[in-house]
């Protein structure tokens, strides 16, 4: 995406919906990895999703993050566009963002009509 687009990181990206290239929801922008904070042009390098991306969100979540395992790191270069959602360039499965629903779909899939 254009590096000149003006987006308020806290309001316009953090905590927003991630949508993959097929239009499927695949998590939230739980945290952002920034570089160059001590320079004039800080840059977002990665989006952190789930797991220990919650570690900065308070005591309880540090514990939850420990149990939840590693966050998924999505390089900023995978971002297609930022609107009211953060749209990604590839399908969730290629970015390891499809771990939640398949885990339970075997159980739900046993019911007729699912």
């Amino acid at each position: 995406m254009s590096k000149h687009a003006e987006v308020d990181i806290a309001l316009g990206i953090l905590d927003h919906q991630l949508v993959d290239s097929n239009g499927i929801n695949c998590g939230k922008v739980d945290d952002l990895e920034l570089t160059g904070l001590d320079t004039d042009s800080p840059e977002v390098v990665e989006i952190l999703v789930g797991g220990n991306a919650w570690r900065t969100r308070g005591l309880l979540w540090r514990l939850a993050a420990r149990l939840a395992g590693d966050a998924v790191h999505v390089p900023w270069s995978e971002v297609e566009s930022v609107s009211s959602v953060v749209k990604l360039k590839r399908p969730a499965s290629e970015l390891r963002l499809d771990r939640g629903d398949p885990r339970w779909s075997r159980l739900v899939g046993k019911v007729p009509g699912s």
Partner: protein
Amino acid sequence: MSVKNVLAVALGILSAIGGFVDIGDLVFNTQAGATFGYQLLWVVVVGVVGIIVYSEMCGRVAAVAKRPVFDLVRERVGFGAGLGTLIASQIVNLMTCAAEVGGVAICLQLLAGLPYRALIPLAVVALVLSAWVLPFEWIERVFGYLGLGLLVFAVAAIKLHPDWGRVAHGFVPGHHVGGSLLVYLYFVVGLLGAAMTPYEVYFYSSGAVEDGWGLKELGLNKVTSMIGYGLGGFLSFSLMIVAGVLFLPQKIDPQFLGTPPLAAADTLGQVGLLLALVGILFAVGGAAIETSFSGAYNTAQFFGWRWGKKERPAAASRFTLTWVVIFALALLVVMTGYDPVKLTEYSVIFSVVALPLTYLPILLVANDRTYMGSNVNGRLANVLGVLYFIVIIAIAVAAIPLLIVTNGGQG
């Protein structure tokens, strides 16, 4: 607009009317009528305008920005406060769902004469099956249309020949007669809470996203929210008027859900009774499904999962499991034998506490041009939106103290 479109809008309005009243409205409107006669009718007007203002706003956000309410909650108030809102709203959704399930079981008991305890699991199974099998539109329609049986209360209210002068007087707030001020205020909070329950905006906005609303639907959104909820408010008036005519003079305290249908029986005989019971059964049953779905919508939207009734259940497996689990927990709560009417009172009062953090993000985003472009709030929506937000904060602060001090409106 073509005939087909007019028909679609009319059907949408009908299901909104039938879907407006749930167990919270039934309980609070009849109790308010039995305690204060018509004196609290003005509160229903205030509540109905409030739900119209905020559902129009969240419907517009859903149509323009395609974002449902809990996306907004997390984006605007952040992770911590958003999580707090999620937990509070889930507790309220569960309590409300349990109360509605209890209501369904009571109606079945009155219709079939079978033991209440045995009917609770039956009610839950029937509701889960309907929610599983029926497509989204049909859930709204079936429960909405059959909920229109509640219109017998409007007929009953007219046939009871209330003193219309005093009814008209009830639409103007003023000094109340009878009962203590605190109990009066408790009912003000309860009636507002029942009319503006948060799950209504969760369900309405998520439903709009599910239906794929776009700019074309902005008109439909205005009409459905205004006329649908507006006419739904008439059912609330009817319940309060009927209770005011029949229960207040006799000092009947409608602490049982079977009491309001007796009012319909009193004026319209067996047919009235039957229509009232069927109306309550489906209005309350529809609300049970809406609350369980709201719980699943909120959780999925907070964590960014795939969600929606239109998704294959196995594809959106976490969403599906969440609403099924809410029904299962509601079953457990009702099976404890706790009185559904009491449960309703608590769920409405607690829902008031969750209102501010639900409504604030809607108000903020509806004013944000980056989401809404030229469809941001107009002056009217903002004046009313801010005014109601102040009202909501006031009642959120007063709700629990009033519940405790008045012993749940008992005085």
